[in-house]
């Protein structure tokens, strides 16, 4: 018994310590170059869940039946983070996909990985006209003059509010708050009976956006666009305004902490617990459809007396993987071109709330008709159109974004515990700097 228990204990000890190394991504059936029908097969890894995934599968199906040379196989790989981890494990092997969908902050990471082929190669070969794409979107994915990946699903943050609650509180439902002081004022009126006025998810993306809308930079070197970023600068006056807003409202009791989970936040809005919150435009269609009250959508609020700069493109883009063979890459390029046609983009836009990469889509009857039904979708498009192309709205380019976001989230959470906003921000900046330094040593 003595020996047995010793053995067991050691066994648990050893296995536990090694388990983080034995994790393997689930291998996909190896992609054969040709299917039986003689079509070139293109494996497409994506992270579109639920309703978004259904629409994506429909689009892929339409493409596969529209021609007879290419067969695209969409494979859902979990969240953006999970998909990237799996990609990481199989990159450079036969199990790697040909097309990989990666979120916006993974851009630098993908470029640095050396496993990808810039789509610029195909744009040049094909003399493809990129001027038909939305300029603000292309802007994000252009690094040193090269378009690295194909923008596909782009979204921006919007203020979503409960129109019925506005009416009950004596507010004009057609005049949502545009500035911080209006936001505070509205939130005060909306807070009653255990319900709250406003909320922001504890997620780095929202902070980045509220910084950019004032023209604030995230990192130095023009947000890492001019050269390799070496220091985080988001503890600026602009960043501080955002943190102060959150803490002031929380102290007033008009701000509700929804945590880090998107679903919890949306559930809180739908149940009336919060009357206003920030969300991604990609969620607009679903929220409008499922909320039991009238939903309004508006621009991101800005501090008083600050000029509105616009928003950063969020969402994801499609990357071509270098190790796939030429025929597959050509086939994948055909699929990418198909995705950016106005017809496909129109369908994608009205069914999800993501933007059309190709603005010609907005002139199609399908969009016009749906905009009448869902005027909220139009707000998101206008906000992007009015965005000024500056390094701030172009978005930061760093490879340690996941780490930096975790630090920002911790800083946001500490606000609810009464930590001084300046102190919280400074700490997040110091920790991001340390991560940047580590990344340079690799």
């Amino acid at each position: 018994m003595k020996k047995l228990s010793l053995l067991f204990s050691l066994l648990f000890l050893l296995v536990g310590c090694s388990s983080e190394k034995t994790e393997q991504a689930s291998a996909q059936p190896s992609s054969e170059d040709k299917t039986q029908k003689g079509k070139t097969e293109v494996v497409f890894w994506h992270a579109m869940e639920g309703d978004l995934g259904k629409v994506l599968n429909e689009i892929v199906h339409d493409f596969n039946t529209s021609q007879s040379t290419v067969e695209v196989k969409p494979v859902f790989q979990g969240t953006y983070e999970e998909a990237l981890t799996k990609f990481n494990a199989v990159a450079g092997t036969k199990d790697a996909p040909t097309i990989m969908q990666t979120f916006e902050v993974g851009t630098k990471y993908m470029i640095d990985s050396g496993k990808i082929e810039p789509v610029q190669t195909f744009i040049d070969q094909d003399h493809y006209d990129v001027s038909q794409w939305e300029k603000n979107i292309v802007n994000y994915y252009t690094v040193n003059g090269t378009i690295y990946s194909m923008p596909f699903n782009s979204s921006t943050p919007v203020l979503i509010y409960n129109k019925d609650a506005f009416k009950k509180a004596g507010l004009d439902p057609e005049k949502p708050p545009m500035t911080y002081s209006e936001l505070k004022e509205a939130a005060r009126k909306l807070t009653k009976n255990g319900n709250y006025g406003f909320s922001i998810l504890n997620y780095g993306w929202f902070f980045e956006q509220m910084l950019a809308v004032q023209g604030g930079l995230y990192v130095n070197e023009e947000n890492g666009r001019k050269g390799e970023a070496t220091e985080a600068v988001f503890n600026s006056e602009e960043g501080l305004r955002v943190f102060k807003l959150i803490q002031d409202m929380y102290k007033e009791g008009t701000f509700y902490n929804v945590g880090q989970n998107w679903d919890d936040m949306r559930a809180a809005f739908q149940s009336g617990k919060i009357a206003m919150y920030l969300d991604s435009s990609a969620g607009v269609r679903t929220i409008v459809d499922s909320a039991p009250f009238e939903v309004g959508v508006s621009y991101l609020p800005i501090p008083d007396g600050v000029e509105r700069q616009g928003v950063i493109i969020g969402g994801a883009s499609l990357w071509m993987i270098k190790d796939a063979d030429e025929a597959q890459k050509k086939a994948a390029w055909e699929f990418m071109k198909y995705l950016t046609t106005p017809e496909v983009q129109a369908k994608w836009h009205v069914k999800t709330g993501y933007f059309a990469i190709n603005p010609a889509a907005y002139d199609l009857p399908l969009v016009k008709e749906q905009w009448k039904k869902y005027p909220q979708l139009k707000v998101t498009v206008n906000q992007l159109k009015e965005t000024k192309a500056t390094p701030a709205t172009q978005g930061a380019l760093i490879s340690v974004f996941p780490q930096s976001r975790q630090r920002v989230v911790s800083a946001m959470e500490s606000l609810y515990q009464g930590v001084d906003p300046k102190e919280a921000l400074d700490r997040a900046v110091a920790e991001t700097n340390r991560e940047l330094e580590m990344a340079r040593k690799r």
Partner: protein
Amino acid sequence: MFRSVKQNFEGMLYIFPSFLLFAIFVFYPMVRTGYLSVHMTDFQGNPTNFIGLEHFRYLLEDVNFQQSVKATLLFVLYTVPPTIIIALSLALLANEKVKGIQLFRTLFSSTLGMSVAASSVIWMFMYNPAIGVINRIIAALGGEERQWLLNPDTALIAAAVATVWMNIGFAFLILLGGLQNIDSSLYENAKIAGVSYMYQLRRITIPLLSPTLFFVTTVSLIHAFQTFGQIDILTKGGPMNATTVIVYSIYREAFINYNFGFASAQAVVLFFIVLLVTIVQFAVVERKVHYQ
């Protein structure tokens, strides 16, 4: 002479399959973890350059890691003693020969059949501030509703309560097995001598159960140090890293931040902490264990 060589060979042959498995899934990853912990790594986890003990040096001064160590120790404290005490009480109850006791034995051990993921999701809903049953009960009793998982003061305890519930099944089953192994003639003697229940518990049950208790404690300790699933699902290490236990921190460094070298260094530190605790267990606690 020949016989003993042959015997030795035969013995090795028997051990070989398990040794092979251990080598592939345990020894190699362990060595590799140690190797990576003194290197910088690229995004694929391949070592790029040797940096010696720099990861460890940084760990010593990193407040986030100190916070992780603290959270882990607190978590162990919040989970192991309550699990053992509750499981032992239930096992003592379920060891009585009463009609229908099988039903209770099944019920008490049923959490063993629940995966960590499934039970975490159930607890997540129970803790939900808006729709969760816990807040509803508190509200019905006139209390104030709380955000259990969003408040750094309560998040770790909330996760610990869920974990205790999950772990009771396993501890209960092992302890019940231990109780049933105790020779019933001892209890008959005690009955004849007319001793009280508490005396019988202290002098017969606990000493004879001590090897089992020791085993359960050791395994529970090691398990608690390696907690991951419920943290990932319930809190993602938040709020303010209050629930970032070491294994979650390792996971985040390796598989979200792709910092495999730094993650490996943390894994090595965890290994030594658990090793130390286990050695202390065997050196100090085991002396009190009574083997038949």
